[in-house]
């Protein structure tokens, strides 16, 4: 990896007397990176503590630690949020770390996804007999990478964050040591992820070549002050970076890995990937494309993003309805959700960014909740994911079936759930830009994917016994061992349910926060 010295650092040719010509080391503003530090140190400390204690610690300890760490990270964003609201956005450490409402909001979303996934993991690991701290450590480290990525104000830092985020998740995907599909998922994710990272890095290099800076504010200023006569290099850079981000957020046509990986990975990890990793990916995408290249190159990248969005919407929803594996269905549906969020990006406006952020928040609750239910239904071995395995759930576990129904209906965008408003805001943002056709396509694909959610509901509620004639009033028998709901998983589902419904019924506070959370680029001190 080539590390380019940021141009803001003066290059000192000869250092005869170090005290006479000080090397400009940027001041480290610890508070600006506090959330990322909390997550990272929390993860390392957890690893240290479990290594020092002789006896294996109980399973709940790791989960509680992780939840506490993520909560602490959320708390750390509060004073920063206040500072940003009072003094405006700033960027620290030679302009590499942006401190604005946007980065803090995404930090919060990532932490929420960590909390939900950790709660799901607790019971999962006990059930699968895989108890250990590594899962939580990796998740915390990956989350810290996501936070770095969300607050990166420099392409190199952004790449750094992306790698911290991804490497940990590659491992997490392969952590279920007894399921070959998990290992296959890990490998697949790693190979394709590394490939996409290379694309991103190549894009960064080309962008640097075209603009002379990796600093986002520097790029923005450069493009505002100069008109590139020959912008081929920059356009290639933009395209390559879009490919890199497209992989991370699983946008069509860079989505090939997602169904296999989501299906193969341990289910709580899938929840984290769908919620947290996607949020970080979108954060990077929004900051680089909307904020940095928004004012000058919108005309060039907007069609590209819009095309990705439409492809994701159509392919995601159409492919989802022909699946019979619920986990795979959710993977495809997450692709179509990515399409919706991409539309918010394509709007390239403040409203679009707010809509995308709101969507990410709601989506975190919906998808973590959905994968949470899938985790429980999977039962020992994490293998019961076919639609058949949901048959008759409404009788065996009426509460669980109802909760899943809420998540599914929320994902299809039924009002009074957060899912409706998420779609509503995105539609508003793109209609405001006059992109009526895109809005119509988005809503129609939402109907297509509604069919998929209905299929699961049909299996849970309406289906008769296997092989019975349709219309028989005979209720279906729920097959397989009974579903156990560990306390932590119950808590996670409860939180996700409250989040999903609250955002749909009392959206005011969250809407205001997303409105204030606009990304700004400022030149560092």
């Amino acid at each position, binding site marked *: 990896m080539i590390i380019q010295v940021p141009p803001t650092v003066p290059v000192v040719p000869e250092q005869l007397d170090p005290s006479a010509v000080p090397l400009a080391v940027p001041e480290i503003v610890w508070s600006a990176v506090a959330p990322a530090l909390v997550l990272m140190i929390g993860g390392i400390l957890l690893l240290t503590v479990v290594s020092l204690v002789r006896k294996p610690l109980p399973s709940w300890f790791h989960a509680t630690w992780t939840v506490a760490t993520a909560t602490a990270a959320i708390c750390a964003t509060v004073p920063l949020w206040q500072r940003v609201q009072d003094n405006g956005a700033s960027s620290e450490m030679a302009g590499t770390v942006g401190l604005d409402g946007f980065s803090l909001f995404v930090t919060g979303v990532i932490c929420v996804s960590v909390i939900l996934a950790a709660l799901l993991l607790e019971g999962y690991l006990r059930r699968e007999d895989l108890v250990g701290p590594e899962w939580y450590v990796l998740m915390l480290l990956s989350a810290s990478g996501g936070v770095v990525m969300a607050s990166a104000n420099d392409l190199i830092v952004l790449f750094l964050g992306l790698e911290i985020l991804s490497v940990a998740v590659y491992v997490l995907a392969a952590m279920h040591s007894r399921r070959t599909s998990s290992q296959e998922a890990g490998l697949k994710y790693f190979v394709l992820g590394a490939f996409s990272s290379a694309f991103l890095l190549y894009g960064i290099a080309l962008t640097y070549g075209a603009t002379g800076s990796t600093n986002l504010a520097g790029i923005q200023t450069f493009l505002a002050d100069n008109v590139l006569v020959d912008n081929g290099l920059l356009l290639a850079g933009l395209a390559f970076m879009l490919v890199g981000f497209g992989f991370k957020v699983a946008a069509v046509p860079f989505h090939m890995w997602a169904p296999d990986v989501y299906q193969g990975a341990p289910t709580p990890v899938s929840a984290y990937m769908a919620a947290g990793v996607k949020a970080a990916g979108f954060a990077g995408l929004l900051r680089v494309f909307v904020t940095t290249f928004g004012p000058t190159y919108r005309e060039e990248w907007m069609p590209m993003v819009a095309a990705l969005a439409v492809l994701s919407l159509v392919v995601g929803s159409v492919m989802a309805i022909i699946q019979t594996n619920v986990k795979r269905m959710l993977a495809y549906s997450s692709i179509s959700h990515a399409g919706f969020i991409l539309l918010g990006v394509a709007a390239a406006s403040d409203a679009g960014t707010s809509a995308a952020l709101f969507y990410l928040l709601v989506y975190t609750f919906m998808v973590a909740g959905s994968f949470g239910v899938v985790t429980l239904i999977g039962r020992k071995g994490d293998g019961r994911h076919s639609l058949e395995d949901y048959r008759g759930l409404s009788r065996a576990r009426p509460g669980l079936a109802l909760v899943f129904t809420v998540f599914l209906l929320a994902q299809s965008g039924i009002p009074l759930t957060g899912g409706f408003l998420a779609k509503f805001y995105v539609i*508003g943002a793109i209609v405001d830009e006059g992109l009526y056709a895109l809005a119509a396509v988005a809503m129609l694909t939402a109907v297509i994917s509604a069919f998929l959610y209905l299929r699961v509901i049909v299996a849970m509620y309406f289906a008769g016994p296997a092989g019975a004639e349709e219309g028989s009033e005979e209720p279906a028998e729920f097959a397989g061992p009974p579903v156990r709901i560990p306390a932590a998983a119950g808590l996670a589902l409860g939180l996700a349910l409250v989040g999903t419904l609250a955002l749909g019924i009392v959206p005011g506070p969250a809407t205001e926060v997303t409105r204030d959370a606009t990304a700004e680029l400022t030149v560092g001190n």
Partner: protein
Amino acid sequence: MTAVIPVMILLPFLGALVIGLTPARRAEVFRPIAVLASGGTAAVAAYVLTQFESGEAGYQFVVDRTWIADLGISMHFGIDGISLFLVLMTAGIFPIAILGAKPHHDPKPYYAWLLILQAGSIGVFCALDLVMFFVFFEIVLVPMYFLIGMWGHGRRTYAATKFFLYTMAGSALMLVGIFALALLQSNATGDPLTFDIVTITDNLAVSTTAGRWIFVALAIAFAVKVPLFPLHTWLPDAHTEAPTAGSVILAAVMLKLGTYGFLRLGIEMLPEASVWAAPVLMTLGVIGLTYGAIAATMQKDLKRLVAYSSVAHLGFIILGMFSLTTQGIEGGVLIMVNHGITTGALFLLVGMIYERRHTRLISELSGLQKVAPVMAAVFTTVMLASVGLPGLNGFPGEFLALLGAFSGARWWGVVAVTGVILAALYLLWAYQRTFHGPLTAENASMKDMTGSEFAVMVPLLALIVFLGIYPTPLLERMEPSVEAVIVHVEESVPGFISPDPGLERRAVGDHGDGAEEGEG
């Protein structure tokens, strides 16, 4: 007093919540709770009727609270002369549907979903904010989906899914239309963004082209819901497979969401586009009413026959409303209410027959009159009301709608009259085949109506007779609002003069300024 609308929406919802929190093994309490909650709502609605100022054109019982301040979305509700009787009918038909049919299994979710459905339906008729309207319009899908899917007959899964997807596909474009309308309106007037129906109606500022596009987007959603030919194919399936209460509610309430939407968000809010689209919609209405009637004649299944008769009646409503005359719109609203009563009663009766005979095939039913004379009498009355016999409640609405159509669009009216004849054909023929004829062995043991079943039908029969003889209480309350709509359309559309024969009457009266009144 001003809180009556929230009470009507929240009361059934609270009932559903109570049912949800009661353990499922206490199966005997769910029905009483449901009756209490829905009946209480009906009582509140009756109170609304007594408090309603009948001379007013504007909205009454208005509630306005901010929901999402950023986007100017508010919880704005109100009732005017048009929505008053739809709210009353909705509030009243639910306790009857709950009392008139029992679920075969899972009483707990059954009653909970029905109550949620009642809350949502009342919400649509009272909503005065586009987003609120959409929220309620869409939310009613979920309970109905579950009612059909869980307690339905035959191909219930197919019917439920088809119903859900059709309606959702329709409203998909509506959301885009709503947003486009609000944003373009805000751009044109320079006012902050608002989704308020009253504000937008009073000073619509979008361009003619945009207004027409938005109308198309909304009209597709309503046309699916109505359902208007050729988007009606979900209806026979959904109606036939739904449980009795579900069919009653579908016919009485949910179809009216579409026609009400056409009136409130179409004619009233987008007058220019409505005038522009009126010929097309009237044509579709006329096609629907003749096609529905012909299709009903051909049905072998009694319930499917009633379902197709709904397509025909709803065609009448559309024809009346888009004649853009006072009579036509009044007739349309009257049919909305009366169709709810008669078709609700018909579905209840068909449900009773099905409970006894486990078949709805007309060919398998014969001579029922001999074993069930009371049921035959009730069926006759309801059927004749549905046919539009003068003196029963079907007549005034159809007459007014036809009158409106004749003054505005004569040839559409001429074709529509054949629908009346066909209605007599299919219903009388069905009655004849089912209740007359030789009594076959399978039908010989059929029991007549029980006392409680008859008690459920009594209020419906009373209304059928009362509203047939004396529809004035309805007309005098809705007239100011309807005339205000016509005046509003005439003022907003240059060169448009309503072909309304009652025009002079309005010039003499002082209802003309009613259009300016936004708030009640």
